[in-house]
C-alpha cells in the first residue's frame, strides 16, 4: 500500500452520550483513500454509533469530522444525511432497511446515482403527451446488471418484503453499490448473508478498492476482516483500543483479551 495515500476521512475526538451512557468517548481515526478499513469490537462498544456520527444520522456532542480536508461536522449536526450521501459518504445498515413493497428490481432503481431530474419543471413536462422518461431504461439496465453480479436475477420481480434476511442484505448492498459514493460505510455487510454469497461480496468489496473507492466496515466475521482489511481499528467502550494492520491485530495481546477471548482467534 502506498504510504503517501491521501487521508479521505478524519475524525478528531468524537464524543457522543446517550443519557448517562458514553457511547463514543473521544474517538479519533483516519481513513486513507482506496483502502479497506475495518472497525471491530465487542457488542455495545459503539461501532454503529460511530458510523451514524460519520453518516450524519446522529450528531456528535463534540469533536470534528473532516472529509477530504473539509469540515463536515456541521452538516452532520444538522442531520442532513442526504447531503452527505450527495457529497459521497453512504451507509448501509446493520439490519437491512428497504422499500419492502417494491420488487427487488425496482428497489435498486431508487438509488439516484444516475442524474435524476426531480425539479418541478421537469415534473410538469410529464404533462406533455409522449414525454418519455429517458433515463428509465438506463436505470433498469444498471439495476439488472447489479442483480446479475449479486446472483439475484431470478428474483428480480419478487417483492423485497418476501425475501429472507440475506437477500434483503444483498439488495441493500446493491443499492449502495449503485449509488457509488467515494466512501462506503458498511455496517456488518456479511451478517445474515448465506455462506455461498460471502466470497462474492468480498470480491466485490475488493473490486471497489481497486477502483479507488474507500471502504469502512464493521464486521464480526473475523476471518474475512483479517483477510481483506488494510487497517483495523479495535473499538472498546467507545474508545479506540488499538489501530494496526491485520497482522498486528492478530498478534496483539490486548485485543485478544478484550475481544477475541484469551484463548485465541475465533473463527466463524
Amino acid at each position, binding site marked *: 500500500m502506498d504510504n503517501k495515500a491521501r487521508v479521505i476521512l478524519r475524525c478528531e475526538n468524537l464524543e457522543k452520550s446517550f443519557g448517562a451512557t458514553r457511547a463514543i468517548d473521544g474517538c479519533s481515526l483516519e481513513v486513507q483513500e482506496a483502502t479497506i478499513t475495518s472497525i471491530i469490537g465487542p457488542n455495545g462498544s459503539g461501532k454503529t454509533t460511530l458510523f451514524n456520527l460519520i453518516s450524519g444520522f446522529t450528531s456528535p456532542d463534540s469533536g470534528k469530522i473532516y472529509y477530504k480536508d473539509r469540515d463536515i461536522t456541521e452538516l452532520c449536526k444538522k442531520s442532513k444525511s442526504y447531503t452527505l450521501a450527495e457529497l459521497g459518504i453512504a451507509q448501509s445498515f446493520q439490519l437491512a432497511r428497504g422499500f419492502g*413493497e*417494491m420488487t427487488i428490481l425496482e428497489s435498486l432503481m431508487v438509488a439516484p446515482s444516475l442524474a435524476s431530474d426531480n425539479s418541478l419543471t421537469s415534473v410538469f413536462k410529464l*404533462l406533455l403527451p409522449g414525454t418519455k422518461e429517458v433515463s428509465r431504461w438506463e436505470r433498469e439496465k444498471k439495476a439488472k446488471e447489479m442483480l446479475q453480479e449479486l446472483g439475484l436475477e431470478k428474483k428480480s420481480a419478487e417483492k423485497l418484503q418476501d425475501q429472507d434476511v440475506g437477500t434483503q442484505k444483498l439488495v441493500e448492498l446493491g443499492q449502495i453499490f449503485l449509488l457509488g459514493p467515494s466512501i462506503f460505510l458498511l455496517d456488518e455487510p456479511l451478517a445474515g448473508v448465506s455462506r455461498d454469497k460471502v466470497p462474492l461480496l468480498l470480491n466485490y468489496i475488493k473490486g471497489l478498492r481497486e477502483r479507488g473507492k474507500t471502504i469502512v466496515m464493521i464486521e464480526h466475521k473475523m476471518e474475512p476482516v483479517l483477510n481483506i482489511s488494510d487497517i483495523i481499528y479495535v473499538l472498546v467502550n467507545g474508545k479506540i483500543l488499538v489501530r494496526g494492520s491485520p497482522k498486528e491485530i492478530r498478534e496483539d495481546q490486548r485485543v485478544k483479551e478484550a475481544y477475541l477471548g484469551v484463548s485465541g482467534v475465533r473463527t466463524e
Partner: protein
Amino acid sequence: MTVAFIAFCLSFISLFLIYVILVLALNLQWGQAGILNFGLVGFVALGAYTTAICMLDPSTLAHVDVGFGLPFPVAFVIAIIVTGIIAWLVSAIVRLGLEELAIISLAFAEFLHVTISNEEWLTGGTVGIYISSLLDEKLDLLGYNVAFTVILLVAALLVYYFTTKLNFSQFGRIANAIRQDEIKAKSLGIDTVSHRMKIFVIGSMIMAAAGSLYIYFGLRAVPELYPVGLTFAIWIALILGGTGNNLGAVLGMGIYMLLDMLARLYLNIPGHPEIAAGLKFVIIGLLLVILIIRRPEGILGPKRSRYG
C-alpha cells in the same frame, strides 16, 4: 325523459368528475407519498375564490370591493399558481414532519373557511360571489350541462393521465420510497423533505384546478360549498376504492357518490326527516368499518408502480 332530468344527470356526472380530480390529487399525496392532507377542501376553496375574485367584473361590484374582470382561462391559471405558492408556504412552515403537516393543513382549511365567511369586502361573506360565464349566456340549460360535462371529462382524463405518469416515473418512485422508509431514502442521498413538499404543492395545485372548474360550472362561490366534510368524503372514497391505485380511487369515488345519492333519494323515515340525513353517515361508516376489517387495502389493491 325530460330535459330537466337529463340536465340533472349531467350535473351529477359533472360533480363526480370534479371529485374524481380531487381523489386523484389526494391519491398522489397520500397514496404515493404518504402525505396526510386534512385540508383538502381549503385548497379547493382557495382555487375557487381566487378564480371568482379574478373574474368578477369591477364595473358591476355590489357588496364586494375587489374584482378584476379577467377571462376564465387567465383566472384559472392564476388560481392554480396562487394555491401552489400558498401550499408551498403551508408546507414550508412544517419542513420537518408529516404529523405536523396533517394538523397544519386542517388548521389552514378552517382558517380559510372562517376568512371567506367573514371578509365580506373580498369574498362577499356568507352571501358569496356570483360570476357570469360566456357559456351560460350563449347556451340553454341542456347545452350548458353538456358543454361542462365534456370540459370536466377532458380535465379528469388529463389529471388521471398526469398523476399516473407521475406515480410511475422516477419522481413517483422516490415518493413511494420515502413513504416506505424515510431514513433509508435519506441514506441514498434523497432530500426527502423537499421531495415531499413538491408533491404536496403539485397535489394542492390540482385541487385548486378542480375548485376553479367547479366555480365556473356553478357560477357562485359560497362558504357552505366547502365544508370540512368534503375533505373526509374524498378520504373515505380513496380508502374505499384502494389507496395507492388511481383506478381504485375513481371507483371508490363512484361508489361513494352512488351510495350518497341513493341515501338521499330512498333513505326516508316518515315523520323524521332529520334522522335520515344522519343515518346515511351511519351506513357509510359501517360499510367502511367492514371494509377495513375484511379488505384493508381497499377494493383494488395498490398499484404504485409499473413493476407491480
